[in-house]
């Protein structure tokens, strides 16, 4: 549950920010009649993400044994790669994304292209939606309860939707900079766990035979089949007897990616102070 909650809350708030920027800007330039096109784009993006998720789920149900293990293993590694890239991309783009989206709205309206507005919302939200789907699918293969996993996901989206409403009406300031930093670190921990689990899946698929010695065995303390063991396995990639390659990959990823992330400049810091915010929505964005 915590896995899906963290993923959907973080990704959902990114989606909420994008939608809020689009709607906030249309409201500001007195073009609220185009809200409908934005929502069409958002709905299409959500449908695409759901369709991809359903496709992955159906494909995995059709597979068995080594092929299924390979499918899950490669999906986990791919999800980690996409997520890592997106974390860095979002940090780099955070201070400029608001003006970029506003510019694209202006461009679409000046051309009289209403469909371009829907397409703009579709592409911006769709990217986040696909990322969410991929990460949720990769994490779902090692979760212990379907109901709790779905509940966590829905709860995360509900939190994100509430944050979106607050941002749109500007009724309260949300500490977005802290939220994005903490959630990015939490996602990196989840990703490191997925990396370790992905390696094990590839071993189960007989694509990797020897992952090295297993320096310790904590099965007697926290059994991997116990509730606590499954919980830690999903969140932290806990393995009671991890192989050396899993340990090296887990800690190597965390140290390298976290260090690089903290040192990675956002576009705003490279170009000096963030631009003066206009309207409640961009204020929220420049706080990242």
């Amino acid at each position, binding site marked *: 549950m915590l896995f899906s909650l963290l993923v959907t809350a973080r990704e959902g708030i990114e989606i909420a920010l994008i939608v809020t920027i689009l709607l906030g800007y249309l409201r500001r330039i007195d073009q609220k009649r185009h809200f409908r096109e934005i929502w069409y784009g958002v709905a299409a993006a959500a449908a695409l993400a759901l369709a991809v998720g359903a496709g992955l789920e159906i494909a995995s149900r059709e597979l068995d*044994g*080594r092929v299924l*293990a390979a499918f899950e293993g490669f999906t986990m590694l791919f999800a980690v790669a996409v997520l890592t890239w997106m974390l860095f991309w979002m940090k780099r783009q955070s201070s400029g994304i608001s003006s970029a989206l506003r510019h694209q709205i202006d461009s679409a309206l000046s051309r009289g292209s209403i469909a371009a507005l829907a397409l703009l919302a579709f592409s911006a939200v769709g990217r986040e939606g696909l990322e969410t789907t991929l990460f949720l699918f990769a994490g779902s293969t090692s979760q*212990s309860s379907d109901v709790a996993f779905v509940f966590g996901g829905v709860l995360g989206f509900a939190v994100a939707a509430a944050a979106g409403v607050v941002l749109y009406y500007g009724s309260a300031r949300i500490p977005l900079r802290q939220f994005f930093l903490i959630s990015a670190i939490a996602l990196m921990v989840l990703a490191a766990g997925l990396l370790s689990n992905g390696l*094990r899946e590839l*071993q*189960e*698929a*007989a694509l990797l*035979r*020897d992952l090295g010695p*297993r320096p310790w*065995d904590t*099965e007697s303390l*926290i*059994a*991997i*089949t*116990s*509730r*606590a063991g499954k*919980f*830690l396995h999903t969140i932290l990639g806990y393995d009671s*007897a991890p*192989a050396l390659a899993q340990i090296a990959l887990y800690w190597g990823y965390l140290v390298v990616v976290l260090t690089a992330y903290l040192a990675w400049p956002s576009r705003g810091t490279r170009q000096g102070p963030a631009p003066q915010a206009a309207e409640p929505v961009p204020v929220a964005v420049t706080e990242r």
Partner: protein
Amino acid sequence: MPLLLVAATAALLLALAACGGDGGPSREIKITQTDQGCTPAEITAYAGEELKLTISNETGHIYELEGEGGAHFEEVVVPEDKTRSANFTAPDEPGEYSLKCYDPGGVSSEIKVRVAGPS
């Protein structure tokens, strides 16, 4: 703050550990995995009976045990030269079921589960 986090995590793990089953398994079944497959080839249980399966992997690579068809037993991966335990609840309907011993890249075998009526 870190102390608070550690305490909260420990409390959560204790709570999770406390969420055990109702009464626990009635018997322990020992399963051994070798390069030739799993033994025993067959186990018997009453409908709905909870068993503790203790799986020893005597091969030099990982091995898996999981339920098939109507036998619900979540995959347990046993590292080389290790022993793992998990509870298995026999199906409520009498009949023949199976547990699959899966050896990635090697010999996979089945353990037949004969389920009799309730005790």
